[in-house]
């Protein structure tokens, strides 16, 4: 008896990536192809457990024959495709996208963004001191989450994780339009009055730290958050029999944060309120 496969085996597709011939399975994206050959492409709105939102446009690459640049995170490879990831156009686009983001939002807790900016010479201050921004006070309206929308780049990942891709709670949505677009509950009601069930799956996918756990936020505020002193250990949740994988972030023998491995076939990075927050009892000591 063999393990049942769903669907047909994948064919391989050959394409040219920065002058080199690459073969990847049919259905792979340009980003997958880049990853396969060890080429790193910056991404922000791309989520390994989510459908591409195509919103941030950091990962744009040039495809021969295409009028515009294409998002590598979602564009599927095609036979004979000729892709350039480091052309003048892609470099210009990446630089400007990072500058635009940096000019409107606080990227200070966005991982890797400094490296990307210096790699392409991005300078968000070019738009001047009067450039309109999204900076605003942090929202703290419940004991578990903090929302700092001055850091929000509108990647849609939290909305997708809360919505039909995973949690199906639909507590938040994108509201408004254009530069005024924002992540919001209905009529911006506080989270405790919304449909939020505090699964934390939005925070799990947030790429900028706009969403964070209260514990992390508080520790950052009082200067005791120190990732260099943190270990990450993956274990199993005890709150029901589903077997969710928990990654415990431990600093000074205290759990300070819980995430879940995105590659887990049980959770795909998702947890419920109990798994995400139900750890304090072991350290009431």
């Amino acid at each position, binding site marked *: *008896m*063999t*393990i*049942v496969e*769903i669907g047909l085996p994948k064919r391989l597709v050959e394409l040219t990536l920065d002058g080199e011939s690459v073969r990847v399975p049919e259905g792979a994206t340009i980003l997958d192809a880049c990853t396969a050959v060890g080429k790193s492409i910056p991404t922000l709105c791309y989520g390994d457990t989510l459908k591409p939102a195509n919103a941030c446009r950091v990962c744009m690459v040039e495809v021969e024959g295409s009028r515009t640049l294409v998002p590598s995170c979602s564009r599927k490879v095609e036979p004979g495709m000729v892709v350039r990831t480091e052309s003048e156009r892609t470099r210009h686009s990446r630089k400007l996208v990072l500058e635009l983001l940096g000019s409107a939002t606080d990227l200070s807790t966005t991982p890797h963004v400094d490296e990307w900016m210096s790699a392409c010479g991005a300078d968000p201050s070019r738009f001047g001191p009067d450039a309109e921004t999204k900076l605003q006070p942090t929202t703290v309206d*419940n*004991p*578990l989450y903090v929302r700092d929308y001055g850091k929000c780049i509108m990647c849609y990942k939290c909305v997708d994780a809360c919505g*039909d891709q*995973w*949690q*199906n709670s639909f507590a938040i949505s994108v509201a408004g339009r254009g530069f005024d677009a924002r992540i919001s509950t209905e009529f911006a009601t506080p*989270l*405790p009055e919304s449909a*939020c*069930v*505090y*699964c934390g799956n939005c925070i799990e996918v947030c790429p900028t730290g706009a969403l964070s756990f209260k514990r992390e936020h508080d520790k950052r505020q009082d200067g005791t958050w120190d990732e260099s002193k943190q*270990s990450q*250990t*993956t*274990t*199993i*949740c*005890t*709150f*029901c*029999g*589903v*077997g*969710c*994988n928990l990654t*415990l972030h*431990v600093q000074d*023998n*205290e*759990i300070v944060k819980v995430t879940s*491995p995105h*590659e*887990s*076939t*049980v*959770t*795909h990075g*998702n*947890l*419920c*309120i*109990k*798994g995400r*927050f*139900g*750890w*304090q*009892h*072991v*350290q*009431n*000591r």
Partner: protein
Amino acid sequence: MSTVMSRRKKTEPYVRLTQPLVRDAGVLRPATWDEALDRAAEGFRRNVAQHGPDAFGMFSCARATNEMNYMAQKFTRAVIGTNNVDSCNRTCHAPSVAGLAKVFGSGGGTSSYQEIEDADLIILWGSNAREAHPIFFQHVLKAVNKGAKLYVVDPRLTSTGKWAHRWLRLNVGTDIPLAHAIAREIIASGLTNTSFVERATEGFEEFVKAVEPWTLPVAELETGVPAELIRELAHAYAKADRGQLSWTLGITEHHNGTDNVLSLINLSLLTGQVGRYGAGLNPLRGQNNVQGGGDMGAIPDRLPGFQDVTDPAVTAKFNAAWGSNIRAQKGWNLTQMLEAMERGDLTTVYIIGENPVQSEADCEHTVKRLSNLDHVVVQDIFLTKTAQLAHVVLPAAAAWCETDGTFTNSERRVQRVRKALTPPEGARDDIEIMSEIAVRLGAGWEHKTGEDVWDELRSLSPLHTGMSYRRLEELGGIQWPCPREDSLEPSFLHARLWENDPVKRGMPATFSPVPHSPPVDELTEEFPFRLTTGRRLDSYNTGVQSAGFESPLRKGETLDLCPQDAAVLGVVDGEEVKITSRRGQIQAPVRIDDGLTPGLVFMTFHFPDEIDVNVITIEATCPIAGTAEYKAAAIRIDKLPVKVG
């Protein structure tokens, strides 16, 4: 005799135990580890010497690792010499294990989560997975969002039911009539999967006779489910290419829980919805390692890997490995042990990480029984209500984050548990504590790591042989069975039933013509309301763990009832009422819930320190599996007199 436990106390969160305690002159006092271990061992030795090994009982822990459970049953069998080992799976899913093992030979859910996503039809029966198993429900919703049909069978319209294409609102305790009516409709409509029934089952003829009386109109009258809905579900399930049937405690927590489970299994046999990719039967486990506890043999009738303790060839194998002398007879299950305490046949227990005083139905009764004992040893991370009754209390490490080992989940996936925290000073690893006691009882136990224990288990349980720690790490967990280190088995069980070759097909699956038996706690004029219990999203069991964090969703214990009943009783949302059953009386505030129907009320059991619901639940238990009928108590509700002043 009833006890009034009504005053709400806002209790502080539990604080970790870091020092052993021993009882002197009726009072628990701090002790050194050596003193406590000596006392623990001495008490066991004394009782076994006086009354024989069957005076000992082990309450193993469904939250601890497989390794701990393996050692606990080994301790019971090899060191003490009895099969009296069980765990709280008795309070929830023992009927699932009993039912599945009876029909198919092993007591695990038959499918994987991925198969749920790939199913065409999913039935959730007596399960509020949206709140009790949220991540499992995400897999269900993946299927639903892809177009699968979801049917929910539940007396309450829960948040799970709100996702259903059809909600079948049945009367509490009428699961068997409903299942039988579905079966009868399938048979009568010529939708029986005859090639499966003929090939892989037996007892079909008797089954047909048993369900014959349950016509749609008769079933509608008994279950309250409209005939048309029963018919629709029957046809949908029989016609689905891949049908999944999952259940939770709504099925098992009844006095006839095993029969309930069997009545659902019948449906899968009738339609061939088992043993194929995407089709299966899946009990959703309520605790992290309920599956593993049973797999590890921490149950009175099976040795590790579901090997029959009454089979002399099996016991011989274990005796050879352990140098022990296991008797080839079933031990007592948890319910039987509690009864044996009352009779005085069981005089000492070793309770690891369990809180029966608060988790058992009719808890006052449980307190009395434990108080009867000569020697109670409790090993836990907190001084629980149960620990407060102990003679020796041993502070343990928290299994899930302070030890290395494995848990087994509801899809039979064994996954690594890893030590992330150093236990607080003074607390010790479960296995280490147990080994210390074993050594004091004369067993030559050496200290073993989790991996050492696991490798010993692998050498004795063919289900687990292929699962080295290295492989578990590499593959992100492995589903049992996994007999070989170089291959993986299909993600579903019982493919053998579809084999053409009768030898490969093996033991046929037997239909169970189970009888209908209404809830024991009868509704009368004096006790006119049916109380059923369940979980809420942000809380867990007796609340010992979930009270550790502040949840914006948590509203405390309430008595949920429908607006019509509230109107009749003249009570409003938030109003405190008196709730009385034949066993006890409590007070709780009212919460109005549109999802309930007249005559049906709901409570959780998450806040026993404030309102102890198990004071009023019934201890009527399933004779096969020993699980109590938490889901069906008869109660009365009284408006409290208006306070003056």
